[in-house]
Every structure is written in structure tokens, then in C-alpha cells.
């Protein structure tokens, strides 16, 4: 099963088995992973599902839309080069993704 590794700002990691087709955000929220708020439920409207993707895994993800790019300028913790909105990342077959959640989302 694909696995997403969520590390919080304090360095604690939770590994969650994910379903193909769900988003990285949905996987986190359903399992109560702290650090991802996702107020809009994946509608690309809130920017409270911000994550930092491990640098070397960034390339294997499909690129982001202009909307996601702009929304990332409004995150609670400033964006970095490896920032993504986790509701826009779909879990794919065999995915092993490492993401870090910011200190706060709102």
C-alpha cells in the first residue's frame, strides 16, 4: 500500500497507509494527523493544508496549477520551494511520500 510519512514541526513522524486516488490531505484528515486543517475540504480555497515535500520527492509529483501557486502565497507559515497544498496531491500506486507540516495553518 502507498504510505505517506507525515512529520510535524516538532519532528514527530506518523506513517499512514493511504488509498490510491485519495489526496495527501484526505489521508491526513481522516486519520487525525495534526498539522493539516483543510477547512475547505480540498476545494483549493483555504490554503490550510500546506505541507513541505521532501526535496528529492518533489520532482515525481505532477506540477501545480496557477491557482495552487497563488494560494501558496497566503499560507500561515511562509511558503518554501518545496511547498505544496496537500489537497492537490493525489496518492498514486506505490507512492512513498515524506511531507512535513508547518507549525501552524491559520
Amino acid at each position, binding site marked *: 500500500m502507498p504510505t505517506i510519512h507525515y512529520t510535524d514541526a516538532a519532528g514527530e513522524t506518523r506513517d499512514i497507509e493511504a488509498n490510491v486516488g485519495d489526496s495527501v490531505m484526505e489521508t491526513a484528515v*481522516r*486519520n*487525525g494527523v495534526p498539522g493539516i486543517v483543510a*477547512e475547505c475540504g*480540498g*476545494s483549493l*480555497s483555504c490554503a490550510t493544508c500546506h505541507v513541505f515535500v521532501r526535496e528529492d520527492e518533489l520532482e515525481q509529483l505532477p506540477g501545480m496549477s496557477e491557482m495552487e501557486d*497563488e494560494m501558496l*502565497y497566503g499560507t500561515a507559515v511562509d511558503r518554501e520551494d518545496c511547498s505544496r497544498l496537500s489537497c492537490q496531491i493525489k496518492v498514486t500506486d506505490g507512492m512513498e511520500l515524506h511531507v512535513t507540516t508547518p507549525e501552524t495553518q491559520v
Partner: protein
Amino acid sequence: MSTHTPERAERSGTDVAAGPEAGAATRPETGLLIIGASQAGVQLAISLRGTGFDEHITLLGEEDHRPYQRPALSKEFLQDKVDKENLIFRSQQYWDEHDIELVKGARIVRIERHAPAEDGRRDGSGVAVAADGTRYPYRRLALAVGARARRLELEGAELDGVVYLRSADDALALKARLGDFRDVVVVGGGFIGLEAACSLHGMGKHVTVLEHGPRLVGRAVGEDTSEYFLRSHRERGIDIRLEARMRRLVPGTGERAGSVAGVELEDGTVVDAQLVLVGIGVVPNTELAEQMGLAVDNGIVVDRHAVASDGTTVAVGDVANMPNPLPGAPEGERIRLESVNNAIEHAKVAAYSLTGRQEEYAGIPWFWSNQADLKLQIAGLTLGYDSTVVRRDDAKGRFSVLYYRGGQVIAADCVNAPLDFMAVRAALGKGQNIPAGAAADPAVPLKTLVVDRTAQEVPA
């Protein structure tokens, strides 16, 4: 962690008139009973665990679904882009691990409060009684009962094919009918009506929107935004009629007797419809609160800490009428908000109250609505605005309106303009201003115009 103490429920000195209904079960007492297992109730339970509340929590709702998010019902879910599983808030495992008992399919019809102590004070405990007679004793009570769709009062409103869109059951029923109709009339040009209209239009239906008022979404956005939506939706081929006066819903004949066939307007014209979707606002579910003797006025009246007039019951989300939370709002101004963000923030405030901390509503209310290719994001509250600034970039398909009250920005409607939305939300959150004079040029990023509110008030 669990503190089930059934004895407490049977203690003497209650004003429970009669014993339990014959044969009806009594549940063990719960530390906190949350009635309403949707956005606000779910958040309250989650936030309480985050703030260290360690009593048993029962999250109870009348719907037969695991708690789910409503916004997609008129958007992605209706368009078949997500399925029900995607809308579920939390896995069962989460509730189990956090000692939160989920009760589905239970409708509470009555609250029996325990009698006050000798000093006349109530500790907030009592028993909630469900429609099937089951009794749910509790130490503290939270009402997160939300709102229901306002019913259309018109001849023919009871015909088959007249539908509402508030719950997953409503949406599932609507989806099951998609093959049965070509022409749909949406009654009401508010957010839900327009979202559903766009979804159905996008699926090839012939859609007519009948709006009673002079403009779209009149309750929530200003005139410029209304006009923008009107033009965009008409251009995409949705037939929108403003100031529409309906006389009755027309029944079909023959095989379609008993089903709706159209809407007759006051001028006698009939708009064909095999489906009429009514989206004319909601009514807060205040019946339980009224029965408990709580103050009710367009929702359950609560203070800044989400506490109702009895001093112990908390009420959160769509059902609550609360002081305007926007920093700097006039004393005494009250508001009832219908949004996800409010349900979440309000539940957080209530969670603090229930654990003895007196936090006030923090954060800037915001809202979104997706209508076809238009993504609307609203930051702040427009209540009491006295001027506006429009930023419009047609080449990029962007459109924002900033609202001002006494020279201070208080809100913005942003269409396909997330940078504007983010800038206004951030400025409001920090108590800053975006002076109106410079804001009209859409080429200038709003972020660069932000000034401290106090700095601006001091004359140069």
C-alpha cells in the same frame, strides 16, 4: 479517560416529570453530549480532545451517515467528482481512539434538565430524549443542531420533483433523479442555488434560476459582485430571471400526474421543469433551545464564549446567533453565520469555554463558493460597509471588491483572485488596513499596500 457514571443520572432532585418511557433504553451518562454531528459538532469534539478535556464525549446526530462535509453536495459530489467516502470527516478508528462515541440515526426530541441546586444554579446536566425514547443523560450539553432548508410555501410545493439540498440524503436523491429530467428550475439565486445551477448546467441540463430579489446572492455580497455573477452565468447559458414572481408549481398530466411539470409565473408564463430545486435559505433549528427556555432570536443567542443564556449550554455553528467577531465591530452587533469556517472557529471557542478558559472568537470569518469556473472567496464581514473599491482584470478573468467602513477595510469578495483574498484576510487578521485610494489598480498587488491601522489614523 471515560467517565461513565450512570448513577448520576438517577440522582434525586431532578425536574424530570415522569420516568423513562416503558421499554426505552437509558444510556450511561456522558460528560458532554453534543447534539448535531456535522461541521460544528465534529469540530467541537475534536477541539475538546486537543484542549485536554478528558470526559467521555457523545457525538449524536439524526442522520444515518457518518459525519460528512456539506459544501461538496452542491459542487463536486453532485458533479460526481468525489464520492461520499471522500466527504467523511474522520475514520471510525479516530473516534474510538479518542473516546468519542458516535451515535447515528438518533433524533433528539426533548431535553429534560436537572433541577437547580438550592442556590438556584443549574450545573448544566440533564437528559436528552430521542424520538425512539432512548435517554441520553449528560453532564454538559452542546447544541450543534445547525439549520434546515427553508420550505417553499406555494401551491404545488408538495409535488414530486420538488427537492431541497441540505443533506447527503437530499443530494443522493437528487443524483438518483438526474436521468429523469432535462429542464430544471432552481428557485433562489443564493450560493446553494447558483452552485447547483452551475453543476447541473455543466451536466447538460437546461437550467432556469428564478430569483425573487433584484439581484443574485443579495444577502451575502454587494451589488458589483452580484452583477459579475449574473453576467457570467447568463453568458454560459443559464437562464436567470430576477424579480421573478411565482404563482404556483404546475403538476404534470397522465403518467406524470403528481409530479411537477413547470413553474407558473404571475404573468401567466410557464417555465418547464421536471425538477424544481429550492434554495431559498435556511431556518436555524432552535426548537430544542426554545423548549429549554434559552434565549432565541434568529438562532440561539450566545455570548462571546459560545455560551447560551442559561450560562452552561453551549451552542455553535449555523444555529448560533453571536456577537460580531470581527475586531473593531460595534458593541452589541450580532450575527448568525452559515459557513464552514465559522462552524470551526466557533466550535474552538466553545471548546475553550467547556474547559474553563475564556477565549474569544479569533480569526477572520471567510467563505468560499465554487460556481463553474468562478471561484469566489470572501474574507471578513460586509456588515455596515459604507464604500467599496472594485478591482477588475478582465483579461485574466479576475474580479475583487473591497468593502470599507469608516475608511477601514472590513471585507473583500474575490473571484479567481486568491492573492487579493489572501492579502485582505491577512491584513484583517493583523488589524491592518489597505487604503482605498490605491487599491483600485488591479496591477498593484494588494499585499504591497497594507498599512498599520493606527499609523494611518495619525495625521501625517
